[in-house]
């Protein structure tokens, strides 16, 4: 059962704040302020119509097709290549797009001079010292400890303040402000964990997009909105844990605990003290991804257990 992916219904999994960030990318900050805060209004009223208009979907296409067309368009923009696009699965294109996007950003960061890069790091570190620890705790609960241990670059990006610092350090405000919204969402949805996976990549989206497609206003927005959604939707947590969609929460918990027991860095370090650092880091990431998948499923279940009543039919059909 494919209930989770880059499709119309999956959008209803996102929090209203997350959707609003994407809406802000599409409408711009000021225009978005007057839109009623409602998932249906955001999804059906703003996101899908925009994708329909810019994504070059065939006339009369249904909403899932519209989303796929927008995705394909962005994938092509980012240089993803397929011999036959019709044969490529949507999930596959999502992954390829995500990779292409990260690569593009990584390259952009590499192009910075050593001085610029150091400035970037130090600004981010300063901001982190101010408040990321607290934010990390509130975002991922127990996971915050792990995140702290990682001290990877990703953690810096998990904070809004960190992003502001980065934007200052890079000396660019154009386009960045637009993306910052989406980036904040990402920080919240994926938590610091997600950021560590996406890595440096995400940082400069705005910059790359703006640099490359300066003037192509709607295309830039489309790219930002699609990438925002890709990152917001994250990976399919069920597939990641190898579980079916209708699995019980107890089972999910069991799988998570089993993974944690087997590969937790502390355990590994005790058992295998000679493990090369890169491998430890790989396992770190795996632990974090497991935790992320677990938390996402937990959140989805809480939501479908009737906590939120304002969502309409489409949201409920996900059940």
């Amino acid at each position, binding site marked *: 059962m494919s209930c989770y992916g880059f499709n119309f219904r999956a959008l209803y999994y996102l929090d209203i704040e997350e959707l609003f960030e994407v809406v802000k990318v599409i409408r711009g900050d000021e225009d978005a302020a*007057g839109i009623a805060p409602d998932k249906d209004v955001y999804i059906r*009223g703003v996101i899908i119509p925009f994708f329909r208009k810019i994504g070059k979907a065939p006339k009369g296409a249904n909403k899932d097709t519209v989303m796929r067309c927008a995705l394909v368009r962005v994938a092509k923009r980012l240089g993803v290549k397929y011999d036959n696009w019709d044969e490529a699965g949507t999930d596959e294109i999502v992954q390829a797009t995500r990779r292409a996007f990260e690569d593009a950003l990584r390259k952009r960061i590499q192009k910075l001079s050593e001085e610029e890069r150091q400035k970037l790091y130090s600004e981010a570190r300063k901001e982190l010292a101010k408040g990321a620890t607290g934010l990390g705790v509130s975002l991922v609960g127990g996971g915050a400890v792990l995140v702290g241990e990682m001290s990877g670059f990703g953690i810096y990006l998990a904070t809004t303040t960190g992003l502001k610092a980065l934007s200052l350090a890079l000396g660019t405000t154009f386009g960045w402000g637009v993306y910052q919204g989406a980036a904040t969402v990402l920080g919240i949805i994926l938590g610091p964990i997600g950021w560590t996976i996406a890595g440096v990549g995400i940082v400069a989206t705005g910059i790359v997009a703006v640099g490359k497609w300066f003037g192509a206003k709607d295309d830039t927005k489309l790219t930002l909105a699609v990438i925002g959604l890709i990152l917001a939707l994250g990976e399919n947590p069920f597939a990641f844990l190898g579980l079916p969609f209708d699995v019980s929460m107890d089972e999910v918990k069991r799988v998570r605990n089993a993974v944690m027991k087997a590969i937790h860095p502390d355990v590994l370090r005790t058992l295998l003290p000679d493990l090369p650092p890169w491998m430890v880091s790989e396992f770190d990431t795996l632990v974090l991804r497991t935790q992320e998948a677990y938390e996402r499923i937990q959140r989805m279940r809480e939501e479908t257990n009737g906590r939120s009543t304002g969502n*309409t039919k489409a949201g409920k059909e996900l059940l």
Partner: protein
Amino acid sequence: MAEAQGIPKQEKNFFEWIQEWILSLPIDLKVLLEISGDSEMGIPARSLAVGTLAYVVYFADLIPDKIPVLGLIDDVIVIRLSLEVIRGLEPERMKYYEEKYPTTFARFAEAIEVLKSALGLIYDALMALVEKLKSRRFKGHTAEEAARSEEVREEMFDEAMEYVANLNLNPDVVHKALLEAPSHQVINLLTSGLEEEDKREIREAEVAKRLEAPKAMFRKLLKGKTDEEIDEGGSSNGL
């Protein structure tokens, strides 16, 4: 404050109500959408819900939507009157909606009273308009067909949400526009809208009359085609 300037208390209340209704428009439309597809309701109630949605989203209104904020006043009033009619038709089932959508139904009976006293004679004229909504046609469908077709309702859902998103209902802007609007202007707009509506109906009746002969001829030619199918080719439904 308003009273100090000699504006009667009644008016101040009316505009406060209107402001509340305009801001709850997105939710109200969702209530109507849900009713239109509710299999536990009778077709008359569902058709009326569809007709009301079509009025808000598709039809040329009593007060044109291009007048910012004020253009929505007729819509929010029509929605309330329509929900009142549906409450009369399906009192039991509506309790479910009243519980589920408290913002829309908070102090609903009181709201209807406010409307009655504020609108006077216009109230009855509007009620008559609402009663007709369930039999109006739009986009080649009757309201009843739309109520029965999930596909049409889904399309209406999308278009209603897009309509709402493009209204840019900023609470401050709404508040300001209503503060500046004298009540007689609103009543005038509604009255002239109703007059136009009457004219439209007369026009449509005339057009229908004039088309009778050619339609009869067509029927002979096409044999088996229904009136609706012939209508769909034309644009006599006011869109």
